């Protein structure tokens, strides 16, 4: 039974409705929790309704998928967004502090509402989803290999104008499982249909991640309600990952599937799930060495080899070897630099204009040292799920290309481990990321 929670009726690993907190909320806690819930919902609605008006500095150009929401809000500006984000974050922190006392039904209803509100609205803060659709249309409608060419090869296609200018000449960095199973089947739906389907995919992947997080927490004797709240009501998860319909959610679902299967002793399917996740987004492969070291089962190796062989047989005839060339994708991404990366911020701190090639090498060295330490600790009995989470967090922190949703990779793993430092570190990194976004609040350039 999870700590700090009692079951009215004996439940399975999935059971939800009857679990009650051992310590109920006092009157003032109930009031505080109510206010926090209202703030979360209001902040989400504000961003979605304002974003529905269309193209703004924070809202990418998009086919009109949320026209039915137009007329209620005003065009989304930096100041309003940042106030909403900071309010959301503060309310999330407040709810996390009370999480052990919150009824499960409250939390599930809140997370469901947040997920649905964002899914009903426009695409927020990123053009990535248009790249996903563009790569799929390149392959299916134009016969162009998305692993060799960028969307600039389909200038006549309707999706072209929506793809971010930085990515027009970039071949896809996403794995063939994502391309073949999660984006190609959406092409016949047309542009708007595919966009809605992408949003639905993100919602379903989020639901799967959250359900598996719940199950893993219960299997490990951890209270699933704070775990669900920490992931499902996280500001970066709701507004950025779900709002942008990012495929990181699909990857997270495969990762949590792997953890669940491992906890059930099903090593081969667990290994297959990790490989599938890595063939959505490469970074999921970070789980494999820790799983192998901790489990030390032949089934894990067979699962990995089988999944890679199957992927090769299916994808090489379609995309060529580039479809499985994870190293090339990683090397290309490692060269990118974003202003939000901690590497850039530290460079500025030391008076440098940005990161240099030597900095890339130093960061890689630091990452290798961290991973080596974690591998050794896993070999000597440290929780492999926590070690995987630390690795994903280290990849995000040492990357010169950091985006909001990268800080979410370690979050579902962090809430199902007993090493609380991982959750604290993940949330700490997210707080720093959010803090870095706030400069327009103090300094709006008056045009």
């Amino acid at each position, binding site marked *: 039974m999870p700590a700090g929670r009692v079951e009215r009726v004996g439940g399975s690993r999935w059971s939800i409705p009857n679990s009650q907190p051992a310590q109920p909320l006092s009157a003032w806690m109930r009031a505080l929790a109510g206010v926090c819930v209202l703030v979360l919902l209001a902040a989400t609605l504000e961003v979605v309704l304002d974003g529905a008006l269309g193209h703004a500095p924070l809202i990418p150009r998009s086919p009109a998928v949320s026209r039915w929401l137009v007329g209620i809000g005003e065009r989304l500006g930096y100041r309003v967004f940042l106030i909403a984000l900071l309010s959301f974050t503060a309310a999330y922190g407040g709810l996390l502090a009370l999480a052990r006392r919150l009824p499960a039904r409250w939390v599930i209803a809140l997370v469901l509402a947040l997920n649905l509100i964002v899914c009903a609205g426009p695409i927020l803060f990123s053009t990535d989803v248009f790249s996903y659709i563009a790569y799929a249309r390149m392959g299916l409608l134009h016969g162009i290999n998305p692993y060799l060419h960028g969307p600039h090869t389909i200038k006549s296609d309707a999706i072209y104008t929506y793809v971010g200018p930085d990515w027009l000449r970039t071949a896809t960095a996403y794995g063939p499982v994502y391309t073949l199973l999660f984006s190609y089947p959406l092409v016949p739906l047309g542009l708007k249909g595919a966009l809605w389907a992408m949003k639905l995919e993100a919602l379903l992947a989020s639901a799967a991640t959250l359900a598996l997080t719940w199950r893993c927490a219960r299997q490990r004797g951890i209270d699933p309600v704070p775990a669900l709240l920490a992931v499902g009501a996280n500001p970066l998860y709701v507004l950025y990952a779900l709002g942008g319909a990012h495929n990181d959610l699909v990857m997270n679902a495969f990762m949590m599937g792997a953890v669940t299967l491992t906890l059930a002793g099903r090593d081969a399917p667990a290994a297959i799930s990790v490989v599938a996740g890595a063939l959505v987004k490469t970074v999921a492969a970070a789980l494999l060495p820790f799983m192998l070291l901790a489990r030390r089962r032949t089934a894990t190796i067979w699962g990995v080899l089988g999944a890679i062989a199957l992927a090769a047989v299916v994808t090489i005839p379609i995309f060529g070897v580039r479809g499985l060339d994870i190293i090339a994708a990683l090397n290309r991404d490692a060269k990118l630099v974003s202003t939000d990366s*901690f590497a850039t*911020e530290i460079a500025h701190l030391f008076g440098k204009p940005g990161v240099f090639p030597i900095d890339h090498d130093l960061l890689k060295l630091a990452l290798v040292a961290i991973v080596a330490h974690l591998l050794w600790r896993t070999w000597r009995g440290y929780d492999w799920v926590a070690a995987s989470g630390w690795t994903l967090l280290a990849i995000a922190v040492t990357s010169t290309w950091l985006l909001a949703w990268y800080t979410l990779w370690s979050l579902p793993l962090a809430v199902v481990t007993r090493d609380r430092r991982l959750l604290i*570190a993940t949330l700490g990194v997210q707080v720093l990321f959010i803090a870095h976004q706030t400069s327009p609040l*103090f*300094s*709006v*350039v008056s045009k």
Partner: protein
Amino acid sequence: MSDSSASIPRASVWERLPERLRPRERELRGRGDLRRIESTLLALAFVLLAIAVVNDVVLSTHVAYRITADLRTYRRLTGHETYHNISVEQDLVHHTSRDVLCGNTAPGPPGALPQICLILTGPVRHGERASHGGFYLPPYTRDKRISRYGCFGSAVREELCAAAIPPGALHAPVPGADG
């Protein structure tokens, strides 16, 4: 938990290793030294990142404050009080506060007409900054020495212009920015 699959290699193989190298199912409860070292390193790393973030936010705030003053100065000196599409180029190489602002010499689509550029330096005083020079650029041209003409003020001394003044083109120094 079912555990049907075989371990690799069998447990006996691992037992041949010295105890300190053998794999373990669970960590031993030690004195907590390793955990203390890890936690200290994590805390130090977090402090470094936090300082870097605060420093970046302060830098951005200062830059935005400076650019606001730049725009105000440009509009006053050029007399184009209603211009919105003024480009600002910062000195990202040497990290100085020297900015170059360019805008159309007459109302029109952004960059479609000859550009007048002002060099702004120094601290913000009374909401504006000092301009001691500038130059002109042809329409739709990137700011490079080979394209600049009609230098005035400090731009003449710095030899920023390499292009000849096009026939009939405006090239008069901007009053208040001519050094």
